[in-house]
């Protein structure tokens, strides 16, 4: 991958860490939006499509970039903010595993993902081990977020992180727009449906709100 892509991937990892460490839903949503923006910039750096490629390729790329930016960077966060306000909650309850331990687990998952990425010798990933590693790490961290949180908005955010991880892996392995990536975009649509469902019916995962639990911060 080109050099700036590495920095971008590291920024994605840092944002994952930030999302795992914070209790506030608002900060989490904003971090997710920022991840979406960075993710939309990734294809430009990776695919090597520049002024010399064909018109359709460039258009295709532009569509993906703009699509990701709008959906992940603008639309979904906006909808999530609305859901958050309509339910009147701004903070997550204390998750199952304390936040300190979550950060350490985050580090361990990153390490594990990096190790696996170097261990799996996928031919397409030659020289792009960084992308594969970061994508796997993001995937694991997103799954961890879904497991660890009670609040359904946080769980949606976790799912978004998982999906970002899948996208990063896809771009690392394929490096140009293709069918697989468009399927990934369909995952985004799924997320949008989930969020609308959250808004419309206030469906919750089992055992979240309803009753005071440890860590209920009332300031």
């Amino acid at each position, binding site marked *: 991958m080109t050099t700036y892509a590495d920095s971008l991937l590291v920024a994605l990892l840092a944002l994952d860490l930030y999302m795992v460490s914070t209790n506030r839903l608002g900060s989490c949503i904003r971090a997710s939006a920022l991840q979406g923006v960075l993710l939309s910039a990734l294809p430009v750096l990776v695919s090597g499509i520049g002024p010399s490629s064909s018109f359709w390729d460039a258009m295709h790329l532009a569509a993906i970039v703009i699509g990701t930016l709008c959906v992940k960077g603008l639309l979904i966060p906006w909808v999530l903010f609305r859901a958050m306000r309509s339910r009147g909650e701004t903070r997550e309850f204390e998750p199952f595993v*304390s936040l*300190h*331990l979550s950060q350490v687990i985050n580090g361990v998952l990153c*390490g594990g993902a990096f190790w696996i990425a170097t261990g799996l010798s996928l031919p397409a990933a030659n020289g792009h081990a960084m992308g594969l590693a970061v994508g796997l790490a993001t995937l694991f961290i997103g799954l961890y977020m879904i497991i660890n949180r009670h609040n359904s908005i946080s769980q949606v955010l976790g799912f978004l992180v998982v999906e970002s991880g899948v996208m990063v892996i896809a771009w690392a392995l394929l490096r140009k727009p293709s069918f697989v990536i468009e399927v990934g975009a369909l995952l985004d649509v799924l997320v949008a449906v989930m969020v609308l469902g959250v808004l419309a019916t206030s469906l919750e995962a089992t055992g979240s709100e309803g009753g005071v639990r440890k860590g209920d911060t009332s300031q």
Partner: protein
Amino acid sequence: MTLWPFLLALGIHLTGGILALLLRRSNRVALATGTVACVVASVIGLVAAGHLLLVGGAAEMQASWHVPVGQLRVGVDALSAFFLLCIYLVSGLAAVYGAGYLGGHAHERTLAPVIFFFVLLVAGMTVVALARDGVLFLVAWEVMSLSGYFLVTFEHEREDVRRAGMVYLIASHIGVVFLFILFTIFARHGGDFSFAALASAGPLSSSLANACFLLALVGFGSKAGFWLLHTWLPEAHPAAPSHVSATMSGVMIKMGIYGLLRALTFLGTPPAWWGITLIVVGALSGVLGVLHALAQHDLKRLLAYHSVENIGIITLGIGLGLLGQSAANPTVAILGYSGAILHTLNHGLFKGLLFQGAGSVLFATGTKAIDSLGGLSRKMPVTALTFLVASVAICGLPPLNGFVSEWLIYVAAFHGGALSGATLVAALAVIPTLALIGGLAAACFVKAYGIIFLGEPRTKACEPAHDPPRSMRGPMLVGAVLCLAIGLWPQAALQIVARPAQVLVGTTAGADAMLGLLLPITRVALVLVGLAAVLTLLRWGLLRRREVAVGSTWGCGYEAPTARMQYTAASFAEPILDPFEATLHRPVHENPVRGYFPEEAHYERHPKDVVGDRVLVPAARRLIAALARIQIIQHGRVQLYLVYILVTVIVLLVWQLSGGA
């Protein structure tokens, strides 16, 4: 011959002990005899060991004995000499200290047994270091453990002391079982029990070597106090008299390290996972040991948990040494082993000093509870000073000796960047682990030193405090001076450490390069001391002609502060332990403050050992319940036992007759 001084020292030790036992009518005479013997023997041994370490050489000799198995074979090389150095140094200082300490107990009971068993403990450790035969090693190990038991139960009329002795005995013997198996394997491989036969028998098969490594890890580790095997340490060390605690924490647990290192010399080139295992064990012991130490309110238990932590640091060094050996990287190996070995000496020094300080506090005030003390620095200045030196040293801060050994381990870890794969990760993981351990240790010793010696006295227990007699002050001052000396001139210490490290690594490469490495540390230490002196002069000059007033501490306008309002040990440790709550087990008993005009309220929090309480005790209970079912065969009736014997004999005879082998 190089061996004679050590045997002479051993003889003097034993003579002194037996004389003390014979002269038990008069406590003073017995005490004097034992102490003089210990000191003379220690001096002889120290000189001999130092000479051997600086000049080099090895020796071995054999005598015959009437035990059918094994031989009476003793020898000394650089590794043995180093541990002998530690033994003589710490036990010599402890013996002098003990003369004063036990003098305070002279009116209660006869001192001859404790003197005799102390001598026996030191003799046992000496023979462990000198032994070159498996059977002799195990015999000496048992002597060491058993005399430790008798020393721990010095105040045997107390229930908690008896319990502590029992825990110590059980843990010790569980470990010895593994050692029996280990030495049996060695003997089968080598032909007989002697180490020389083992060394010349060629390498062990890799599965056998792995098994031996694990056996050594558990067997020697239970004596050393690795995490999970450590639960006896915080029980036994506080129960013993202070000079014994100093010896036990200072050298007896290091015999476990010696055993592990000696076993490693027989096992050839290690595979990578050995080093990684030791690093994991070391990291757990270090971090969890210091966390538990932070949670304690009893000074001696706190120090005992710190011994676990420092054993963890030594193990980290050994792990790095093993990683270097397995990757054929001599820099990492030499640096790692040197750091571990030097830390063994350093820890013996400053932990011995700390326990002596704790003993002085106990001697003067009658209590070990940190929260009852305070402001003792004014009443016990010498104790406070030496305790401070030992505290700063144990945190690994320059310009004292702890910094040098931890520095060596850090540099080994940084150089581990040249390795690859899992060994690389393990080596680099040492860096944040050691940093965390250092930070938490600093927190713990600021707490211990600050709450006991600084501030205002919290209860009436502090009133009779005074500096202990000269016999107790002397060893503490000597220890403090040595800590400072090794810190300021680490090359001298490195001369002593280089040879044992080479014995372990098997080559002589790299040691001279290391000597050059340590010279700049002296420069930095001297600059530091110089700057401090300059600033002191500056301030003295500025304040010389001005009025220096004395007032009360600024309390932010609060008019009626009391000594009980000071921070306590528990409150000091609370923010530090809060992120690590999951790893500790500290049940709270409280009657909280309620309402605007609260009535009586109290708060109690007792730190319990996580492994002991949550793992070992329930497991033991289940084991006992399961075994209770087999108890059916034990009725207590002698006739039934005779039936068992008769049946067994008949079965054996029939089997033999039918041609079974």
